[in-house]
């Protein structure tokens, strides 16, 4: 029987999230004090040693990102940390859990990151629909300020930091790091061409470190307990733990934190307690709308970035959406394509036209009795073209659910 390994979520359910005293009583704000005794470059070394990979979905090395940002434009007057709390990938709600139930751990991770790259200002971009998260994170900031944990010369060091919340206003695309920066600057959510990456030219043109909520909260514990300890958990290609969010036709939907390398079967049948109404497992969608369908052949695959990628699947945000044998994959795929069409910003032609085309094409496919193979091939071709030519990850995504749906469930179309 597999057990949860709560590291990022170690305080969840154990402390009052609105009490800074309770956070301190369980060892809170010790990690930042440890970090402040090191040189910033030593903090970055710890992050590299931990091999932590970004938990937003892209899985890029957190330590490398910090290193790039800290070395970028040394003459620049400002650099920033931006926390990406615009959680919008369908099936994903782990960041909401962290913000609602342990906001101080997030703040501490932001402080450590800011110290490591030489930033004195951090922004937390929270989607506006997350009312309780906004309330609790704001209270945490206020309480931390009253103790001068946020402010000038924190813990009697030379390090000063201000943290501010910025709101989104309902846009999935603003969860993409460069689009998020545009939105934070008070503009329409259009992605930027990269390079330059945020590490070089981010917020207001300055070097910026953009990190996901789960990544930042995990940094706190890594600095507290040590990178070597953390790197021994999980798998070689994906050390540590991951918060998975289970939903769909599952008896016990919710969130779990487990070591990387756990299998899908264990997640669905042990933690999720199996399929609702004791129906049969048909398949799952891993990573959200910008994710991949899998069938029962994948149930024993270890969940890690590289091991899933080797089988053409995605870990993504850690969303696991389960379907039983009453669900229609073609209906689900159609709804996913509707989602992408709605969320496309319209800036680039391949995505603006492409997302509308894909929806029309799947509507046709569902209605047609002839030429199905040809229509399927056209859909894949269109989505492939979009993936190669779109400006940002939104246009690059539909190929993932499309290809995997036809790969595993072609008989349903």
């Amino acid at each position, binding site marked *: 029987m597999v057990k949860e390994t709560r590291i990022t979520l170690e305080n969840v359910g154990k402390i009052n999230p609105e009490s800074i005293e309770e956070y301190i009583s369980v060892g809170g704000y010790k990690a930042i004090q440890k970090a402040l005794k090191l040189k910033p470059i030593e903090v970055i070394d710890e992050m590299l040693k931990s091999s932590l990979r970004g938990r937003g979905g892209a899985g890029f090395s957190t330590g490398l990102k910090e290193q790039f940002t800290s070395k970028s434009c040394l003459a620049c007057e400002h650099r920033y940390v931006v926390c990406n709390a615009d959680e919008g990938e369908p099936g994903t709600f782990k960041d909401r859990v962290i913000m609602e139930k342990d906001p101080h751990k997030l703040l501490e991770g932001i402080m450590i990151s800011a110290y490591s790259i030489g930033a004195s200002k951090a922004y937390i971009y929270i989607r506006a629909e997350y009312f309780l998260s906004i309330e609790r994170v704001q209270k945490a900031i206020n309480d931390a300020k009253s103790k001068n944990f946020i402010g000038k010369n924190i813990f009697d060091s030379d390090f000063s930091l201000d943290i501010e919340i910025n*709101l989104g*206003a*309902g846009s999935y695309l603003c969860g993409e790091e460069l689009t998020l920066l545009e939105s934070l600057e008070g503009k329409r959510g259009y992605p930027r061409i990269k390079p330059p990456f945020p590490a070089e030219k981010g917020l207001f043109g300055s070097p910026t470190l953009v990190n996901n909520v789960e990544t930042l909260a995990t940094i706190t514990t890594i600095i507290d307990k040590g990178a070597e300890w953390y790197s021994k958990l999980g798998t070689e290609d994906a050390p540590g733990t991951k918060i998975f969010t289970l939903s769909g036709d599952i008896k016990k939907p919710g969130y779990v934190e487990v070591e990387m390398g756990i299998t899908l079967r264990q997640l669905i049948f042990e933690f999720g307690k199996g399929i609702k109404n004791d129906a049969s497992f048909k398949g799952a969608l891993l990573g959200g709308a910008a994710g991949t369908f899998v069938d029962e052949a994948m149930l024993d695959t270890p969940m890690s970035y590289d091991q899933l990628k080797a089988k053409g699947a995605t870990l993504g945000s850690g969303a696991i959406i389960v379907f039983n044998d009453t669900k229609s994959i073609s209906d689900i795929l159609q709804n996913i394509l509707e989602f992408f069409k709605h969320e496309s910003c319209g800036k680039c032609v391949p995505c603006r036209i492409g997302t509308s085309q894909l929806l029309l094409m799947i509507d046709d496919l569902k209605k047609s009795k002839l030429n199905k193979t040809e229509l399927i091939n056209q859909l894949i071709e269109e989505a492939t073209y979009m993936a190669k030519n779109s400006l940002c990850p939104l246009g690059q995504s539909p190929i993932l659910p499309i290809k995997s749906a036809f790969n595993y469930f072609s008989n349903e179309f």
Partner: protein
Amino acid sequence: MSKKEIFKKYEAKKKNLLQILHEIQDSNPENYISKEDIEDVANFLNTSYSSIYGVVTYYSMFSAKPRGKNLVRVCNSPICNMNGSMAIIDAFKHELSIELDETTKDKLFTLEKAECLGRCGQSPTVLINKNYHDGLKPEKIKSIINTYKK
């Protein structure tokens, strides 16, 4: 909060735009941002009307047109959709006698679709103003609406 108070609360910097627009919209019983509001914000931030209008019309939470006192936003993203959000939408349409993106004649309710609200473990879900109602069934809709009629 009045606009005057809102403009006192925030520094006149474009990075504060979305927060300012939220406060203006939330203070308006018709849940929208008017032409006059856009002009005032443009003046406050020393920027163009069109750039503010562009922001208002981009984000799904903002509206440049009057809406009802209660915003009913039903999630229709993949998990809620596969768990019956369309039936929930139909129930709201039936009870309120309006179509999507319409407002009731008494200006009490506007019905909209929303994309993933991050409550997938408790789907299907609806956001009414700032309140979430999870684990919905069509038969629950009438009583939910009634609580907002008071």
